[in-house]
């Protein structure tokens, strides 16, 4: 086999694999489980998404809203951005409740909005830092005017 043919073959195989990868990527993207779109409670109230669209919902855990089922299998609470609230139910078979999940703290959940207006979450994220506010949440709260600002660091750096 001549060098030119060999190179042609390698390029063909390479392009074929790239095409295959593109098909795989597009196929994966079109599946609703792979992508999650960020939304705030207000977004959900104004424009309810279709029930099969995966949503990443961020806000604050409303104080006094957390209820644990008596068998410890699910967790119900409300997420608020100051303007609207959404009822969330989380089945803990999907993973343990993060250590930092607390009332009044920022939280991000992933799942789908059921037709009854209840958000069924299968992922619950509260970051491992109590000063930390999930960036999407911080931004959403800023938009609705409920942002209190970050805690200033202990000392201001000086050169």
């Amino acid at each position, binding site marked *: 086999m001549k060098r030119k043919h060999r190179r042609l073959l390698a390029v063909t195989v390479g392009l074929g694999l790239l095409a295959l990868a593109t098909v795989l990527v597009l196929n994966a993207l079109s599946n609703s489980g792979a992508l999650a779109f960020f939304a705030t409670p207000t977004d959900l109230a104004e424009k309810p998404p279709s029930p099969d669209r995966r949503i990443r919902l961020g806000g604050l855990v409303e104080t006094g809203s957390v209820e644990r089922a008596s068998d410890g299998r699910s967790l119900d609470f409300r997420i608020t951005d100051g303007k609207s609230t959404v009822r969330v139910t989380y089945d803990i078979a999907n993973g343990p409740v993060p250590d930092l999940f607390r009332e009044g703290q920022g939280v991000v959940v992933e799942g789908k909005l059921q037709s009854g207006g209840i958000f069924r979450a299968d992922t619950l994220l509260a970051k491992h830092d109590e000063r930390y506010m999930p960036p999407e949440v911080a931004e959403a709260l800023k938009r609705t005017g409920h942002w209190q600002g970050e805690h200033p660091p202990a*000392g201001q750096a000086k050169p």
Partner: protein
Amino acid sequence: MIAELGHFALALALMLALVQSVAPLIGAQRGHPGLMTLGGGTAIAQFALVALAFAALAHAYVISDFSLATVAENSHSTKPLLYKITGVWGNHEGSMVLWVLILTLFGAAVAWFGTSLPPDLRARVLAVQGMIGTAFLAFILFTSNPFLRLSPAPLDGQGMNPVLQDIGLAIHPPFLYLGYVGFSVAFSFAVAALIEGRVDAAWARWVRPWTLAAWCALTIGIALGSWWAYYTLGWGGWWYWDPVENASFMPWLVGTALLHSAIVVEKRDALKTWTILLAILTFALSLIGTFLVRSGVLTSVHAFAVDPARGAFILVLLAVAIGGPLILYAIRAPSFQGGGIFAPISREGALILNNLLLTVAASTVFFGTLWPLFLDAMGAGKLSVGFPFFNWTFVPLMVPLLLAIPLGPLLGWKRGDLLSAMQRLLVAAGAALAVEVVVTTLVSPEKTLAAAGLALAAWIGVGSLAEWAERVQLLRVPLRTMLVRARHLPRSAYGMTLAHLGVAITVAGIAASAWEQERIEIMHPGESLAIAGYEARLDKVEPVQGPNYSADRATFTVTRDGALVATMRPERRLFTVQRMPTTFTAIHSDLLSDFYVVLGDSDGKGGWTVRIYQKPLVPWIWLGCMAMALGGLVSLSDRRWRVGAAVRSRRAAAAAPGD
């Protein structure tokens, strides 16, 4: 005072790096020996200076000098000494200093061990190393100075994130950086070859050991990170396709491809330009990986913009470091002479297939990791790409690669015989079939995919051993002859077998996760819970006091058929400085399975949420990674790569040009 000394040492190192990036290059161009040798001295001196700066920073952490901003923000006087030291690289500034320390260490090693290199190649390699050093030292000094003073100094620091106070995570970044930065040597050799316009087998012989060393370190680093996530986060998972994980996985994938293509350059003098491109891409992905994790761009594109100087510096650095060599490549690569000719079915062909699959797989990971960042930066909305995306794109591309692992080494160079290779793999095929049949009929008929995964592992494992058996003529010659053959097999052959066995072990560990069992219950002291034939009894929950945390510690007695298996003590810790709770999982491993116990919240009425997993074969995931890294190290000890071996072979090649 010591901190100022460290600061000064960094500045001095920057000046030396500037000299190192220019002088040897001019020397090599003009054939000026004095300028060329300047590269070696500056590289070693630069390492000494950066080591001094690093020591000064570590000193500040150890004595808890809270007048330094990084120490005040990331350390605390009550922190155990070990974590004061490892805390040096637990933050942006310190980790950058560690990065440069390792970079200059590699530069000094090239200067030290590279005395047998042709002087012009050595000078150019060191000059490129110097340029990377210049960029990073300038980045540290101008945007992320670790020696910034605070006035007034706070009385105590803000403490370190408790999740990071863990030995697994403490040693994870140095290994990761050894890997990332180790690829800089391959990168420098590639750029030097582009400047020189010449690549030969001896060049590959120099590049391979450096790539191999970096690859081993990166393998260990990724495995440590995954293991840390497994035992510390309490979720029972070990890989999340998280952007931080992907950032280290992409250079590993392309680095693995580089490792294999360098073999073709060395043995067959082919694939030269492709190997150079891979060397550039591997280091480019290492740079992107470093900055993805360290710049804050992952938590938010906007956090990245909070510090515009840092963000702009990173973007310019990436553009120059990746764009420059690629432009040089576009200009120079077409002039390289193609090497040995080979048929598509040959070992070269198999290695090309390996390379294509690995790079295409890496590109899908790249897309999934960076696409959300790109959309966000364009203002097109926020979205996240979850693990299903990666499972549906990455796994289908890996399957043909894994299937081909035993075949490649059995194909001959230049022209291979697929049929006879297949015949020699009959035993492996039989083993895979046996595993498939046994698992689907006897164990669990419904888990077809997982059974196929185990069969794949058997195919790779037995197939890799079959190649070794072929080389030593197992059972075909008398035992004594076989042993002599086994002893004379080069170490690199053993390295390959071991690394491929490691792949098989990891694949088996991943596939077996389909059989894991999990139970979550609210338990009261005295109650028992049965899972997978084991019985776990919660004896008591008691408060305990750690050095910088207080905790609730549960005691579980785990039995199987009445016999004691283990006494396990998971904790729920509350770190006093940060007021932050963390879980401390208890894991009992017998290397065939893990028993994993997590203590959750108290329900306030004497009950505790308890989560227990029984995970068959899960330790194999990391054991396999260790076997891969060990294979790399065994290969590294091959005599061909001892100091001076390369120069002899280059002389031999020059003496026999018609070879």
